[in-house]
């Protein structure tokens, strides 16, 4: 097995709040291998975006460690991080907010080259043109400003900027969530091609289960900043082990009326990250919780090779929720 591009251990992040702290990320560990896409799914407040900001060190973690490309960057200074950012990139959800409105697309594409590549102006212009072509932007776009482009085109610009310096890892934080369905498909196809060509590793953050299933090799399900389950994408979607994952997947609406829904009811509301309950965070809403579930944090248990979930009931195989009745 090759060395991971990214190795995260016991990551913890707290945001200070008026009385106490928001426990956004609680003891999260994972690796991403070269050329791999790891999907990070969870509902709002699950800490998925915070993890994206932490591993790119746009935030400094409260605890734990982050190693990128063999180098510990947990406490790395801005000066140390700067050259490294050529290889560690992030694409955000909102391309309108991510691109400087006063720069032309051409300049926006040259900017990362200016920062990281030793090229003269002519080389940079040529490279920007090549990048635009690579992400299938029309050449005319280079002279335009962000407000003149559509959301899908702008997201292509963001991706082109991220890949400009041949990164090893790109974090994609909901890269297609603000786009229409057909435009979204085009962006996902582009990411797929880029990965096949260059072997970039990707951390794909999304709340959209269908998209994550399509693009990811492995998937981590987060609940309140803690990993509930992780497995190969096919395993996770075929046989979810954690009651939360089972609930989450059952609530998804497949865009096909021929697929029957079989929904697990969820009771109650998600606990506040300001006051997390002891033990398993899902215990209060879990239909099969035992008294022991509220006592201690459940350990990650193996369900099958490469498939782990943090649920006590996996130990004796009683972790599956009763099959719900299909809705009419």
């Amino acid at each position, binding site marked *: 097995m090759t060395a991971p591009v990214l190795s995260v251990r016991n990551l913890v992040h707290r945001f200070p709040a008026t009385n106490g702290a928001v426990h956004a990320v609680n003891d999260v560990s994972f690796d991403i291998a070269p050329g791999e896409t790891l999907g990070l799914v969870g509902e709002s407040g699950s800490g998925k975006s915070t993890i994206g900001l932490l591993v790119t060190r746009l935030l400094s973690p409260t605890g734990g460690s982050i190693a990128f490309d063999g180098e510990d960057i947990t406490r790395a200074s801005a000066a140390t991080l700067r050259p490294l950012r050529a290889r560690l990139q992030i694409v955000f959800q909102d391309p309108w907010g991510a691109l400087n409105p006063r720069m032309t697309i051409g300049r926006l594409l040259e900017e990362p080259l200016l920062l990281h590549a030793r090229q003269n102006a002519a080389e940079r212009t040529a490279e920007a043109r090549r990048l635009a072509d690579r992400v299938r932007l029309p050449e005319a776009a280079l002279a335009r400003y962000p407000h003149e482009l559509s959301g899908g085109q702008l997201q292509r610009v963001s991706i082109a900027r991220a890949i400009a310096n041949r990164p090893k890892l790109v974090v994609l934080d909901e890269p297609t969530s603000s786009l*229409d369905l*057909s435009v979204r498909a085009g962006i*996902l196809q582009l990411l797929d091609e880029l990965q096949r060509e260059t072997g970039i590793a990707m951390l794909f953050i999304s*709340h959209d289960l269908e998209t994550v299933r399509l693009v990811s090799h492995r998937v981590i399900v987060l609940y309140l900043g803690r990993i509930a389950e992780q497995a190969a994408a096919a395993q996770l979607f075929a046989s979810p082990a954690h009651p939360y994952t089972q609930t989450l997947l059952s*609530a998804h609406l497949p*865009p096909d009326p021929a697929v029957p829904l079989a929904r697990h009811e969820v009771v109650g509301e998600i606990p506040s990250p300001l006051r997390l309950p002891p033990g398993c965070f899902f215990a209060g809403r879990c239909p099969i919780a035992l008294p022991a579930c509220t006592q201690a944090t459940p350990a990650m248990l193996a369900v099958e090779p490469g498939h782990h979930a943090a649920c006590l009931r996996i130990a004796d195989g009683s972790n599956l929720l009763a099959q719900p009745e299909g809705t009419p």
Partner: protein
Amino acid sequence: MTLLEVDDLHVEFAARGLDNRVRVASALNGVSFKVEAGEVLGLVGETGAGKSLTALAAMGLLRPPARIPRGAIRFEGRPLIGLPDSAMARIRGRRMTMIVQSPLTSLDPLKRIGDQLIRMQRVHGSASRAEARAKAEAMLAAVRIPDPKRRMQAWPHELSGGMAQRVLIAMALVNDPALVIADEPTTGLDVTVQAQVLDTLRDLVRERGLGALVITHDLGVVAHYCQRVAVMFAGRIVEDGPVREVFARPAHPYTQALIASTPGRIAQLGWTVTGGTPPDLYNLPEGCLYRDRCLRAAPACLVAPPRREIGPAHGAACHFAGEAA
């Protein structure tokens, strides 16, 4: 019984450009559909297709610079276009109501939930305060808000997104309307919450025999909560029919592309879809508006295609609808 009937509706916006010339955006270009009592019609399409605009037009909420140069909207057989505001006010909020997308900005932040539900009834009817209060509480219970008596006292900012959306549903249904229009009722909610809210809405619509128009860009919502679907593109309905029928045998190339670009289909069939931008509403092309993006476009498409019937209550506005690809 037909509740809402929209017939060849056109809406345009006139504005002066920087060069001081008047530019006209043709936002709706001949929208026609019906909502029958007891049915849920899904209206899907991408951003800018005119879904929300259609809803606003039906609710009589268009204001200049929007105008309706052509078309008709009838509610319970009564023409709405040109109806004086006072008459429209007796329909809107009472017989025909709306649930909007962003629940937390749609509630009055300075009024308690209960008072908003009471006000909604008192503005539109003659219920006494006590009656309105009792009904408000019952309505909160009906949308499955736990402990409704206590929640009556809650402020909007104390509610989660899902709870706030339930309150909006309660507001929309408290006056016993015949038709409810839900504009992206669950966009922005988490999946588990979305499922709960949609279940609540569907059950209430069913129990009360209402008609509903659900506007969404999410094909999953259409697939599982609507009986009929109308697909919009560039201000026109390009296809309509029973949900199962349209998903099984989409006839318009746009509908086909839309369904083929869902991740599940991509996983099965590979990357087949090329997306694109919608046409410029200031300068619409002749003929079929989907022509520029359509893989099947032919010279015939320079003439606007009429709706062609391809099955029982299933039609598509394409010259080639129903023919094998």
